[in-house]
């Protein structure tokens, strides 16, 4: 009898080899988990992951080798394990778990779902799919030496969304566009504005230029000349383009901003940087002609800047900026026009570091090394093999308890960095479902907005997608459909929905005003909740910049009712540095151990006073509830 059979017998599991499990994520935890599942005797495993392998995965994702870089994680992981244990059935899906193909019926075929995910959005989605399909979910996360495993069973325990999740950091737009005071502000500017403006999708509105008209609210400029400026002109070579952009964004834009005397009354005035001053005749950019290192196109390789931990001089930053712009245009032209920042994109990281440092220098903010800037720009999570191995083992043990119907014995287990008291692994009993959770119990929400001006488009963007985490919303007023999304909708309905999209709520066939109940559904997620509309004339521009507020149970669920905040945080109060709640290819968002369990241990996630107070620039796409 093998060890795994012995274990299964002890745990009263009959035929573990017949159980079918779904693993979502083949990253740091995923690799460990797949191996541990197979060695525990599981024989039918589906594996979903949309990512491809990066060099920075190799220090812990042990199923991958250097030669696999660029290939599908799910597929390589499957092949690696099959090579060792050929008898096992592993189905690899190189796809987004949110795809329609993974519908409720797909989820229903599994005995348990095991998450090793790297972002909140996907986690929320899998949570809803598991609730809808009635399949138990084992959820996990690690950061450095910290980790956690939690179990979610419909009707018995909390769902993943019963407790509020920390919101990603956001910064006031004016701090980013006009008055940066920390390097992180410059990095956000370089990543979200400069990189996007030069190489991103031109259709996206960007606030890059500081116009004389732009005040502290950071008004968006939609000047057509402005948009044209960043196009490469006919006959212009990449070098000339890079130099022209340099003088504009580090020189002319600062000069323009300086005209706004009010802004600088009590602040240090920034120094415009013009290329002829920064790089003199003798400093002409000379490259060594080798613009790649191990197959990666790199400006620092081209300029011979070897140590990523060293802070470059202003001249070097200028050189890296010019060189990276040229390399994008000359060597990566296929990405230009659709580039999105990725922390594993060497050239993009170099561009962002140089641009952020140059801007920081202008504003008298100390510059940083590529290594540090990369950490900030990518919100990089510390990740090591040891914690992933421990967490994967714990996931399998919880899964075994579920499969042996010992759900009462399931625990949330926290792996703590320092023995708090005398424990390294801290088990906590599972909590009951939160009766006020809008995901797993049908708690109505109150939506306050100005019905005379609000439109469906705004509600969809600001509330339904961003705050409720709904992917494909269907909106109904009673039995009347007001909005649907998806592919197989009749043409006349599409036209009808489009017509409604920008109509004011009061002008609807049946006006939407106080007392009306809207139903929000997502058939794919089998998610449903009702929004009780309440008309309100005015909103606090600082505290409620979106002009609509979700209150009632959603707000108390998140415990951050904006109107109840005694005081608000100002821009520079937002902490910079690595963001614990951001995403990496590993898994993140280690949650604070419940207070009762820590007995006073100070945890990291205590940023209750960083509520958005002004118009904010979102740093990431995945914005969870941030009421």
């Amino acid at each position: 009898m093998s060890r795994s059979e012995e274990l299964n017998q002890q745990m009263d599991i009959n035929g573990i080899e017949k159980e079918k499990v779904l693993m979502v994520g083949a990253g740091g935890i995923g690799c460990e988990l797949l191996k541990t599942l197979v060695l525990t005797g599981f024989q039918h495993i589906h594996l979903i992951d949309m990512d491809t392998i990066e060099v920075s995965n190799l220090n812990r994702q042990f199923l991958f080798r250097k030669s696999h870089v660029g290939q599908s994680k799910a597929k390589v992981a499957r092949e690696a394990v099959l090579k060792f244990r050929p008898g096992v059935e592993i189905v690899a899906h190189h796809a987004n778990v949110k795809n329609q193909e993974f519908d409720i019926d797909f989820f229903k075929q599994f005995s348990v779902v095991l998450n090793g995910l790297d972002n909140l959005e996907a986690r929320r989605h899998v949570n809803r799919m598991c609730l809808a399909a009635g399949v138990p979910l084992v959820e996990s996360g690690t950061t450095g030496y910290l980790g956690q495993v939690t179990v979610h069973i419909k009707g018995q325990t909390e769902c993943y969304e019963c407790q509020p999740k920390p919101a990603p950091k956001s910064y006031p737009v004016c701090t980013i566009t006009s008055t940066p005071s920390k390097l992180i502000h410059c990095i956000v500017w370089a990543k979200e504005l400069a990189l996007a403006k030069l190489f991103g999708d031109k259709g996206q509105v960007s606030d890059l230029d500081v116009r004389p008209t732009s005040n502290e609210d950071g008004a968006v400029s939609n000047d057509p000349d402005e948009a044209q400026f960043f196009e490469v002109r006919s006959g212009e070579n990449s070098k000339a383009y890079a130099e022209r952009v340099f003088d504009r964004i580090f020189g002319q834009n600062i000069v323009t901003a300086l005209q706004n005397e009010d802004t600088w009354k009590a602040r240090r005035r920034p120094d415009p940087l013009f290329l002829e001053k920064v790089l003199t005749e003798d400093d002409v950019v000379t490259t060594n002609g080798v613009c790649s290192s191990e197959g990666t196109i790199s400006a620092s390789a081209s300029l011979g800047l070897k140590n990523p931990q060293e802070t470059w001089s202003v001249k070097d930053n200028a050189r890296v900026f010019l060189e990276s712009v040229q390399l994008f245009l000359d060597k990566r032209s296929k990405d230009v026009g659709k580039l999105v920042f990725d922390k594993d994109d060497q050239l993009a990281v170099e561009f962002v570091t140089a641009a952020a440092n140059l801007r920081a220098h202008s504003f008298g903010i100390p510059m940083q090394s590529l290594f540090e800037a990369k950490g900030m720009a990518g919100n990089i999570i510390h990740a090591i093999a040891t914690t992933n191995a421990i967490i994967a083992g714990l996931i399998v043990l919880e899964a075994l308890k579920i499969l042996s119907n010992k759900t009462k014995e399931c625990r949330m287990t926290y792996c703590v960095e320092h023995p708090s008291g005398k424990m390294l692994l801290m088990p906590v009993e599972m909590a009951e479902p939160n009766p006020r959770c809008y995901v797993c119990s049908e708690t109505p929400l109150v939506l306050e907005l100005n019905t005379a001006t609000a439109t469906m488009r705004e509600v969809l963007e600001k509330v339904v997608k961003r705050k409720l985490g709904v992917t494909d919303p269907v909106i109904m007023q009673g039995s009347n459909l007001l909005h649907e999304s998806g592919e197989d909708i009749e043409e006349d309905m599409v036209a009808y929905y489009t017509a409604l999209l920008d109509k004011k709520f009061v002008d609807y066939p049946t006006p939407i005003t106080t007392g009306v109940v809207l139903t929000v559904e997502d058939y794919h997620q089998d998610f449903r909740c009702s929004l009780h509309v309440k008309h309100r004339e005015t909103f606090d521009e600082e505290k409620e910049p979106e002009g609509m507020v979700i209150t009632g149970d959603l707000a108390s669920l998140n415990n951050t009712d904006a109107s109840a905040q005694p005081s608000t945080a100002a821009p520079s109060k937002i902490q910079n540095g690595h963001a614990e709640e951001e995403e990496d290819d590993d898994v993140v968002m280690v949650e604070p151990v419940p207070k009762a369990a820590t007995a006073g241990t100070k945890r990291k996630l205590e940023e209750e006073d960083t509520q958005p107070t002004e118009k904010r620039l979102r740093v990431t796409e995945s914005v969870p509830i941030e009421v």
Partner: protein
Amino acid sequence: MAQRNNKYDRQLRIWGEHGQTALETARVCVLNCGPTGSEALKNLVLGGIGSFTIVDASKVSAADLGNNYLVDWESLGQSKAKSVCALLQELNESVGAKFVEESPEALLESNPAFFAQFTLVIATQMTEAPLLKLEEICRQQKVMLVIARSYGLAGLVRISVTEHDIIESKPDNKVEDLRLHKPWPELQSYVDEFDIDTQDHNIHKHIPFAILLIKIAEDWKKSHDGKLPANVRLFKEAITARRRVEEDEDNYNEALKSAYIVLFPPSISSQLRAVLEDKASDVDASSSDFWIMVSALKQFMANEGQGEPPLDGAIPDMHSFTDYYIKLQKIYQARAEADVTAVEGHVARILKQIGRESSPIPRSTIKLFCKNARNLRVLRCKMLSDEFSSRSGPELQRLLAVEESSHPALYVLLRAVDHFAATYNRFPGVFDGEMEEDVSRLKSLAVGLLNDMGGGGASLPEDVVSEICRFGAGEIHCVASIVGGIASQECIKLLTRQFTPIQGTFIYNAMSATSLVLNV
């Protein structure tokens, strides 16, 4: 360089370049490469240790294929050490890989000097008698020892080192040392530049909270015979009185939040005090750099520091204009540098006294030491032979009576199974037919063991005894993955000299998902 940085990017952010270098120079030996040993080593190889050597005499069997990922079908019947070694090498080509096809027990007898070449030895799945021998050798040869064991659904991890000095203990709750209660002259003169009652509202709400606190405390002292407020409430009232409510001033919010640090500046922690009072800080020519720096630290605190350790120079984020903040940051950094220079002076004098001028300690090391001076730690582990002696009995007896968990009983039983094996030449529960007898045999061995240690009369929970028998000595993969994971994590802490390793015996119970560190 770039490649190394990319590959290790995520972990460099935890332990830094110097931590990585420490790993890359480490020579690790693993005794027995079942799933526990293989998993522990796999994590270290991925992390990039310098080299490893596996010692294991066994051949790959069908059972190994069922619980160890680092052996494959093709190596069935061949050396397990060889197979694991080859597969590990594939994971990271920059790690040196070796194996010795011999049992650790035999090697201990035939060639004790073998172990001297390593930085650290991980002993997995070994029983009491050879462990005692191994510990003796490791202590003599100054090799760090980590013991790891998976036994059915139970696990154990134990560190044995004579002395382990930690500069970067990286505690969770780092204290902020801002010296607001006694600003030094440079800081004071910058504070004096501010008029905190300025009528310019914009300036008023951008003065860093550190400046506000120093000023307001100063004003209080002027009107209260040079005394600080008697409690935080009074001080907060004084702060609130200066703020302009209609301006929604965040710097004042921060000042209120940090008001207590003026009245209760960080004290010298008991751990630091223990380090300062340690006999090893009376240094001589044989002292390590760490103790020479501790000795210098004592002199610094008695002189320049006026009782305080060096300033670390870090300041928290403050709501402020950038230029105010940067100026403040520079003042703190300058003071920290000056403190490093002072400590460096003491170090030089001490080195001269003990005749070691020729091998100075680099400033970068002294700087790291000063920056972390408040959190220095020294770990000394009890010898296993002492732990197993009669002195530990009463403490075990107490734990068995007090602890509601199964861990103290598991601790005793994990030792008792070794006595069982020594007596019956097999572990309990191996034959289904003798299960009941084995339970009572194991129980009487465990009780006898407790008696020998002076802990007679303690009772062992029946269910834990039979559980240990039922599971047998097997290594279950998911338990091995957890135990190996924890063991490798402790190895990294030891090798990088960062974070505080487990102090005591870590006992894991997979059934209840609980763990406990026992100190007996």
